[in-house]
């Protein structure tokens, strides 16, 4: 099974994997080789790629995933290896998100999204330590 993570800037990852965990919009899901074709929506969270005993971990801030044949392709705005996340910046982003205005449903929506992104980022970073 192959996993490809594509961002607008570069292809972050393109390698063989034995097992992949993706942060779908409503929780994590694991994928083994031979999965049925699927298109899914991702939420902010951690991608874990297990291949021949080693495990890699990335933070993604949403996007979508397409599984076809034996290839999992993840399309996301940004993906950061878990060890390289700037924890201080993520915490700052969280407090900035928490002080966002939420007067209307649209504003409240984007506030909720910003908070969940920042929280997920902090969670992934702390786990990687």
């Amino acid at each position, binding site marked *: 099974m192959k996993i490809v993570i594509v961002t607008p800037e570069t292809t972050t990852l393109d390698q063989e994997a034995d097992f992949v965990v993706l942060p779908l919009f409503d929780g994590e899901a694991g994928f083994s080789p031979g999965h049925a074709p699927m298109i899914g929506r991702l939420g902010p969270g951690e991608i874990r790629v297990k291949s021949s005993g080693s495990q890699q971990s990335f933070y993604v801030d949403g996007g979508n995933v397409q599984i076809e044949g034996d290839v999992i392709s993840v399309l996301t705005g940004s993906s950061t290896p878990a060890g390289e996340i700037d924890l201080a910046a993520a915490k700052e982003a969280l407090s900035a998100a928490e002080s966002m205005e939420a007067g*209307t449903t649209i504003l409240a929506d984007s506030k909720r999204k910003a908070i969940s992104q920042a929280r997920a980022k902090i969670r992934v970073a702390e786990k990687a330590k």
Partner: protein
Amino acid sequence: MANARALDKRRKSIRNIKKITRTMELIATARFKKAMDRATAATDYTNRISGVVSDLARAGLEVTHPLLEAPEKSENAKLLVLTGNRGLCGGYNSNAIRLGVKTRDELIAAVPNVTLEVSGKRGISGFDFREIEVDEQFLQFDDQPKFTEVEVIANRYLQLYIEGKLDRLDVTYTKFHSVARQEIVNETLLPLGKLEGADTPVDPDAAAGREKLYEFVPSAESILEEVVPASFRIKLFKCFLDAAVSEQVARMIAMKSATEAANDMIKDLSRTYNRARQSQITGEIMEVIGGVEALEG
């Protein structure tokens, strides 16, 4: 005949300028290659997004989204003009500014409230010179625009559009077709219009549920909600990338012709210098001979 030493001095200074333009050409070439690689990577992302859209369309989903359709009113328009932070790149900046001014005039004629945003020092000073007020300016984009930085701008536009404070977004930038051809264009990015891949004919088997192409998690509509803003962001990012690549190409070409012009001037000056030197020597010999003859006489 001109003074030989003055000619030599001029020739030296041209040689120095040539060294500078030649170096700038090489730097622009290196930057162009890097920028080009990034543009290619972005194309990969765009293609994959289009692939998802066409798969959604094939499964029978009607591709509709508020971002795709023009809002009923059109009161607030925004124009974003992409220029460079540096000059010495031929007509790159002035062309973008000229089309920007023209587009702005057209927008003002059609829409009551038009705001202007400009990226690049050259564009900002260009609009300043024409006494046109720039509402927002960006200086952080050079030869390698970062997606995270563009994303911030894109999200702001999306937010404004969703809130109904923005009805139309136009971007004036230099589109990159090939090394030999770049074109100044004005594109309307919001409303997005048609998504690439949305025209894919519906697969009747899939639409009727007889054959499942894909499992959609949670649903095709929800995925579309993610894909449409993503394709707007990548489209805006592509504009920035194209502008960056075009700027480097323009600089490469401008510096190349500057180097060639310097070469020609050096050749010309050398010829004049040699002639001046020769005539000076001839004059001196004549003087010496004259002197000898005077002594002998």
